[in-house]
């Protein structure tokens, strides 16, 4: 499964990048995120409850960031395990471009899912993932815009 999109965020790039590294903001914006712990600047651990079609599962996963090109771009790799529901792994490349006071975020993500999730939810996975990504960025943009105004 591949996802890509471009999102305009009404906040300067440094602020966007900082927010993307802020576990509190991320936890608020990731749909179903129950817990997000930052172990280091590059390592995160998350617990997320997801429902795809008939499968509802609580995933626990780890995410590793590669910020060497930050803030122009960065990449991340992650994997999550939802017990009998299955598992997911994938990565994303994110680019942040300055456009005046605003930032244009583009991302390309690749993910693979396995187990029951892939079997029962395969028709719904891409659609659900797009919806979840859109929801994340909508919340994220809103969160940041609010901060920016303040």
């Amino acid at each position, binding site marked *: 499964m591949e996802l890509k999109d471009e999102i305009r965020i009404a906040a300067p790039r440094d602020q966007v990048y900082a927010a993307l590294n802020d576990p509190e903001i991320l936890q608020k914006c990731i749909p179903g995120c129950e817990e997000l712990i930052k172990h280091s600047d590059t390592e995160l651990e998350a617990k997320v409850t997801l429902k795809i079609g008939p499968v509802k599962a609580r995933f626990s996963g780890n995410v590793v960031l590669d910020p060497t090109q930050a803030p122009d771009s960065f990449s991340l790799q992650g994997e999550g*395990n*939802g*017990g*009998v*529901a299955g*598992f997911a792994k994938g990565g994303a490349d994110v680019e942040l471009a300055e456009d005046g006071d605003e930032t244009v975020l583009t991302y390309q993500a690749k993910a693979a899912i*396995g*187990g029951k999730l*892939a*079997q029962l939810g395969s028709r719904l996975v891409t659609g659900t993932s797009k919806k979840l990504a859109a929801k994340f960025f909508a919340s994220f943009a809103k969160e940041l815009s609010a901060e920016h105004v303040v």
Partner: protein
Amino acid sequence: MNEMTPTKSERAAALKGLGTSRKRVEDSRFTQGKGNYIDDIKMPGMVFGDFVRSPYAHARVKSINAEKALELPGVIAVLTAADLEPLSLHWMPTLAGDKQMVLADGKVLFQGQEVAFVVAEDRYIAADAIDLVEVDYEELPVLVDPMKAELDDAPILREDIADQKAGAHGARRHPNHIFTWEQGEKEATEAVLSGADVVAEETVYYHRTHPCPLETCGCVASMDKVNGKLTLYGTFQAPHVVRTVASLLSGIAEHNIRVVSPDIGGGFGNKVGVYPGYVCSIVASIVTGVPVKWVEDRMDNLMATAFARDYWMTGKIAATKEGKITGLWCHTVADHGAFDACADPTKFPAGFMNICTGSYDIPTAYLAVDGIYTNKAPGGVAYRCSFRVTEAAYFIERMIEVLAIKLDMDAGELRKINFIKKDQFPYNSALGWEFDSGDYHTAWDKAMKAVDYDGLRKEQAERVQAFKNGETRKMMGIGLCHFTEIVGAGPMKNCDILGMGMFDSCEIRIHPTGSAIARLGTISQGQGHATTFAQILASEIGISADDITIEEGDTDTAPYGLGTYGSRSTPVAGAATAMAGRKIRAKAQMIAAYLLEVHDNDIEWDVDRFVVKGAEERFKTMKEVAYASYNQEIPGVEPGLEAVSYYDPPNMTYPFGAYVCVMDIDIDTGEHEIRKFYALDDCGTRINPMIIEGQVHGGLTEALAIAMGQEIAYDEMGTHKTATLMDFFIPTAWETPHYETDFTETPSPHHPIGAKGVGESPNVGGVPAFSNAVNDAFRAFGVNHTHTDMPHDHWRIWKTARDLGMHD
């Protein structure tokens, strides 16, 4: 004789014996919802088991934590391999001489593999508890493609036997290699190929599919600790084999185990094997002291219990330029999944794949089959066919079509000039079988005439022209097939499973008032045994089929037999039934002679009675003899009228048939419409024509499913992609075409009543007929187009049309 005395033919008709389309006696209960299937069985205090299954196709199991599951109210126990190990039940032998994990022992080898067995007070609690069992996996590289099994970077799947250079079927050359089975003459065949006028080559993949019976697998195990007896109800196609294996595995004496197969909602090979669910249920019943029920859901069934096919068959067929076949070469890569759990006779690790010379007189042939381990579910069962006979028939019937293209010859004519001739039977094939009987030319000519073959070809040529003129977008395919099956395993000289000889049995008891019960070692899964076996017996002993009860499936009462699969019931148990009936008649003759006060030799059998030769008004009916046998002192003869026969068949039987499928294909949508399907079957003596027709309809519909859409598919991570009926194609009335059935009758010379078996013929012959029709539709549109693989779903048909430039 007064007018009221029934004539001989009226008496024969009253028996409802051989050749009668007697209504199925089973159906009154099935159609009223009064069947007794495994899930109908409820025992006092019964609890339920369900499996934690692996989401990974290949992973190490680092730990299993059942604490949270055990805290859930209603959960009684969670079994893991560690619990089974002290009983040596964490692994079990397979029917193919391999061994299989009952519960994951250190690693998992396919997605859906059984990891832990949760036992709870009800089925729903068990399902909830599964989510609470925490398993820590370490993912390993996955092997999905069997062609990559022996590459340097291939992961080693079976670490337990990685160092074993010899398996159950000879040398192993790689840890992921199971066996190589060779038949025929390699060098002679290569010599024929290199000197031939024409050689056609093709790789034909018979995809992985699944029997998918409507009723899934299941069991109820009940260990009675007071009397030490284990009762096991289950969906078993071979209850006696299950009892013997259960005794050997558990150490419980065989007389203390009672295995019962109740009504079975379809088997098709899926219910031959022994599954972890059975073993875990038995252990759980021993542990808890109460009956334990385990029944698969549909995903469990499609993911974990036995699949079928998955043969990659590469062939070369040599012929003279006139089309006389001179040689056949076949190399097959057989994907067996994670454990070799095929249910083949022990000496035949690739089943009867060496029937792949088909209906043709092929003087020289060579077959090699490589069995390979992959990260997929185990199985390789005979899905509505005798062992690997569908694969063999599909292979040869595709190769014939490919050869016809190469020779630029009509595929029907090519078949005809290569058929084994009637006077060549018994025929010894190049790959080692003695075909008992056949008359292929008569059947073929009848089929060609019935469908107006020449007219069809003319219409097809016109259609091709119309397409080229831009007048139509629908192509027409004519799918031909002439198959020869090999069923009725089998003679004990070469057929056994785990050392158990493949005879079968029948035990008959005639009651004093002249009705009877017959018990057999087989078990019906819908075939109608209670109807047809009574008919065999009616004709043998002169008691109406309506007065004969047939009983199967309870090892406490039925005589030992190897069960029902591979169309073996009629050829083997049917023969035993006739032979036991003849023993009854032999004793009855002595009694009748005594009652008629003549010598044994002075009376003869007449439909339902013994008559004095030359004085047919003096007779004793079988009913009268039965009464006398119990109630009259007959000097020198024991009271009672019972017989038993254990029948070891001298040979297999070789049913055959000629099928024609006419199909229209929309090249823009890939949709197909089956305009005609003609099926001529020769199953030897026909016991019940109505049941034969029903079997043919059912088998053809399963063939339609396999050829046109049904498959077990895995993604590159080893995730099973077709585990629900949303993705796994089962035809409904909507997709199922009209079938025309026909027959010829060539009795088996060695079977007591000449019957050969029929239940599987339509699947064996149907798949090539459907597939050949699809391929034939494209024959005119590509010089190099000789073959497309099944299943021929709409997308694949559309893609073939696109690849051939037909959308341009």
